[in-house]
């Protein structure tokens, strides 16, 4: 009886979790299956029909992937995406770590107010800022350039990254800083030797957030960089594979998987930090 009680709730729990996971994954599986199907099959039958005879390999094709990868400009777009995303992840995370440390442990007048202002910036929809910022960028000749978009992504990313890192860094034990001060560590030394190594889980999860946000961004790039092939990121190139009336969408499914590859790799390589990082700062003490 006891045994049954112990086994039963766990199996139910697992069944429910697996069920939810399956439902969650269903659209992605459909996308994956569709990306391997022939255009005329896609038009006539649903993707699930492949499972009626799953080992009939004539119904699958690599043609969509071939078109997407060999298509003019895809390689250039991948590099553009990297050029945009790497600095636009590095700068905000570095700046946010500095700021979070300062807000959490350094004493200066107006610290709380300033922190509130930064956090309050979270509620401003970025679409509202396009016109004024684009004006400033035009004046500085930054529109259509990579430094321009790094600056844009850095400032859009800062409020959330500062907030997340602040919560984590503020939760580090005070004794650490006291003993560091007694040992004669400067502020910079404390930051680089203590705070950074201890915050790796939080930093990793913030890196994932910011990386995926920038990598998947279409609108910000379109406004500040434009759709020129020399600067357009992967998202724009993927969107331009589809005809303006939504034809050729079997290419979209393949392109979606190509553009998902790098974020998935980043996510899986950092995911053990991610779970810890999300919980970071949620419980103090």
């Amino acid at each position, binding site marked *: 009886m006891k045994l049954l009680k112990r086994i039963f709730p766990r199996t139910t729990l697992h069944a429910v979790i697996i069920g939810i996971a399956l439902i969650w994954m269903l659209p992605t599986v459909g996308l994956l299956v569709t990306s391997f199907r022939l*255009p*005329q099959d896609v*038009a*006539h039958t649903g993707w699930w029909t492949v499972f009626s005879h799953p080992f009939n390999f004539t119904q699958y094709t690599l043609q969509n992937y071939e078109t997407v990868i060999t298509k003019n400009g895809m390689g250039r777009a991948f590099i553009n995406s990297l050029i945009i995303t790497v*600095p636009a992840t590095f700068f905000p995370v570095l700046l946010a770590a500095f700021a979070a440390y300062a807000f959490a442990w350094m004493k200066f007048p107006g610290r709380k107010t300033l922190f509130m202002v930064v956090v309050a910036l979270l509620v401003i929809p970025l679409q509202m800022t*396009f*016109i*004024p910022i*684009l*004006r400033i*960028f*035009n004046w500085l000749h930054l*529109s*259509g*350039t*990579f*430094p321009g978009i790094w600056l844009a992504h850095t400032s859009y990313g800062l409020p959330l990254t500062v907030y997340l890192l602040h919560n984590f860094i503020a939760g580090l034990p005070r004794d650490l800083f006291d003993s560091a001060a007694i040992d004669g560590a400067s502020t910079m030394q404390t930051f680089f030797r203590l705070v950074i190594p201890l915050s790796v889980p939080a930093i990793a999860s913030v890196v994932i957030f910011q990386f995926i946000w920038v990598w998947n961004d*279409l*609108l910000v790039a*379109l*406004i500040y960089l*434009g*759709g*020129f*092939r*020399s600067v*357009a990121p992967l998202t*724009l190139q993927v*969107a*331009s*594979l*589809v*005809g*303006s*009336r*939504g*034809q*050729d969408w079997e*290419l979209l499914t393949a392109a979606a998987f190509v553009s998902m590859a790098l974020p998935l790799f980043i996510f899986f390589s950092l995911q053990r930090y991610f779970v810890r990082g999300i919980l970071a700062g949620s419980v103090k003490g």
Partner: protein
Amino acid sequence: MKKAVIALLILSLVGTIAVFGFAAKKVTIAVIWSGKELDAFESALVPFENQTGIDVVVESVGRDLPTVLATRIAAGNPPDMAAMPNPGQMKEFANKGVLVPLDGLSNLADSAKAFVDLATVNDHVYGVFISADLKSLVWYDPKVFKSHGYTIPKSWPELIELCNKIVADGGTPWSIGLESGAASGWPGTDWIEDIMLRTAGPDLYDKWVNHEIPWTHPAVKKAFQYFGQIALNDKYVYGGTTGELLTNFGDAGNPLFTNPPGAYMMKQATFIQSFIKKSNPGLVAGEDYDVFVFPPISPVFGTPMLGAGDLISAFKDTPEVRALANYLASAQAQEIWCKALGKLAVNTKVDPSIYPDPVTAKAAQLLANASAFRFDGSDMMPAAVGAGTFWSGVLDYVSGIPLDTVLANIEASAKEAYGK
């Protein structure tokens, strides 16, 4: 680390100066096209670049074009030229004074007058049409029609008679697909516009588009009712009203080519041919599928043609921009562009033999000989109506909501959108 960051910044600055600093004669043009259409547009520009040495940089913005244009205009750096989403938007920009008038381009003299008029605001030409699509077409399988003894209807009663005959033979006359993602409902607006042109005439149609008559006007109601005669009849439409609401417009043609046919007719614009060919490779234009004109309803108004077109306007007045605008109006440019995509040229000097198949050639002929031509009304109306409540109104009507409620709803939003 610090040094690396500084070096990276300097490098990128140098890079941007190298890219943007030494730009010679150059025209930037933002377009809505992507995929095959973008490739076709770029290949149409090649002769111009070779002849003039002007570098045309095409920026594919996609569906966000209206947002991007509005933002860049407000921020003061619009592209040199841009494709307009529709003539309504062009008119809005022209009235704001952000567009450059393009009067007096020599090649405009060869353009069909109806299209020059469509791009004219307050007696100035603000855009160049490079191609058109014809919407007043019904697609069918001529072999199936022949084997069943069906003939092409020449009037509305003949059309209904044909429908009844097909039903009596155990078939379903129409395939209608209203689904189109966030734009669902638009295929139905084409029906209503075509019927409106045929029952109320082009003049009342213009008044309706400009909201000089309300949506509750009897003529508008009548157009919806004609549409309802077919669209609300479960026997006439493949899959009934439910199928109609759930079928994507791009897939609606497929039942025409199954054996036995799921449906016999589909009303759709010229561009649908690429969808038909893609889903049913091996079909031969003119043999396995063909078009007939959506029949006239009132003898007074005959068969006016409904269509849409691709329009380009300029934001900056430079000799290069004018040269490019003039080139885009030329037969040379339109031959390349239309040949690649099966679109219909607007320049009347275009050689009819460029059309890739007899069906497109037939559509071009129909367009050239049209007694009256009107632009897709939903594209001309303010977006809140033409790309909003009109679309959803069609869906509401087909899903069974009473017509008076549907029209009152659209009218309420129109009052707000037109500001009168």
